[in-house]
């Protein structure tokens, strides 16, 4: 997956410590917005951060288990896959591979 203005590859996006269970951490990568999450099992995930209904940043929303609820009209997205479970929104957001190295979070774009 290549976002505009960015070479495809692994990118360092933030310190590992920034991403804690229970809330999303939103970043801008060129024109793309990505939300990074840590689930209760410690695993790290990155999905597109812009709700596919209207405009809202999912990382500002509410994490419940492995789903994030849009802060506006409550559309649910799977944190592992970006799959949208509605209501209101019907289109999935992309999911990005992630890894951690030397206390940093990297995602593959």
């Amino acid at each position, binding site marked *: 997956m290549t976002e505009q203005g960015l070479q495809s590859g692994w990118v360092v996006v933030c310190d590992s410590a920034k991403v804690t269970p229970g*809330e999303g951490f939103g970043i801008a990568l060129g024109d793309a917005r990505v939300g990074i999450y840590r689930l209760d099992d410690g695993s790290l995930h990155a999905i597109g951060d812009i709700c596919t209904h*209207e*405009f*809202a940043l999912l990382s500002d929303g*509410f994490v419940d288990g492995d789903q994030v609820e849009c802060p*506006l009209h409550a559309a649910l997205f799977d944190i592992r896959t970006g799959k949208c479970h509605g209501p209101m929104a019907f289109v999935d957001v992309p999911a990005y591979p992630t890894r951690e190295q030397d206390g940093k979070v990297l995602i593959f774009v």
Partner: protein
Amino acid sequence: MFLYNHWYVAAWSTEVSGQPLARTLLNEPVVLYRTADGQPVAMEDRCPHRRAPLSLGKVVNDRLQCHYHGLQFAPGGACVRIPGQERIPASVSVRTYPVAERYRWVWIWMGNPDEADPDLIPDYRWMTDDQWGAKGDRYHVKANWQLIVDNLLDLTHLAFVHETTIGNAAVAESADVKVTRGPANVLVTRWIIDQPPPPTYAKVGNFPGPVDRWQFIDFTAPSFLRLHVGATPTGTGGPQGNLEGGIQMRNLNCITPETESTTHYFWAQAHNFDPHNQAVTDLAFEQVSTAFREDVVVFEAQQRVIAHCPDSKEIDINSDAGGIQARRILARMHDAETARQSVPA
């Protein structure tokens, strides 16, 4: 839409005296007065005889006497005198409402009296705490109460409506915002880092340079908004939890519906710097009062536009998250109250 099983502020303590005070609350006419020993009383403001408002009458030996034919009602609501009539049927009474006096306000419970527990009154201790100075007001607003709730949960409007007092551009464009929620509560946390202080803060805080400003907005259903706001000089550790060394204020709001389209907006501003200096209390109050009057103009204009075309659509933007969560809580509580009322006894 109203929620009944809650405490609301009915009046400032200073408004309730031996003279009856008429006030419509949640569309119900209420009369408030005080007995000789200082206890506030709230009754339905409608004489059961020929429906004259009892607030036209006067207090006689702690009883409220109707102005028209002189029926008297005791603080508990029972009719205790009918001129020219020896016997008073036990059924003659007016509805009374549970009341409590706290934080310089008289609170009233508009729902089922059996559930009126004073411990449910939200904490407004800054109104009476010796470490704080506080001053407030009541605005009569010709707009629905929920428009005011929306307003306080989205402070980006400060940049546009309140440029001369508590707002500047930074408040809309440079804020780091977080919304969390509970079953009856929404908390919006906003940090505006390393930005010039807005005019009011510059006046009361004498900051030499840029500030880290916070706005913690606590919404508690149905309509209590307690804002913890303040600023510390940038670089002194505010965002890391050190809120000392600058200014802290509480902006305290109790929004009581009068009708579906009008509201009693009770509010106060409290400060913990120089708390016993009346000039500081007055200045903080005046600044916020200027801003809130600017809000009232907006609420009343919105109400007119909405009333003109109630079905017209709205869109939501990113900064509406807090307000939307609050509206969802209120709708859920309203559904629950309606469901309970429709269960046959």
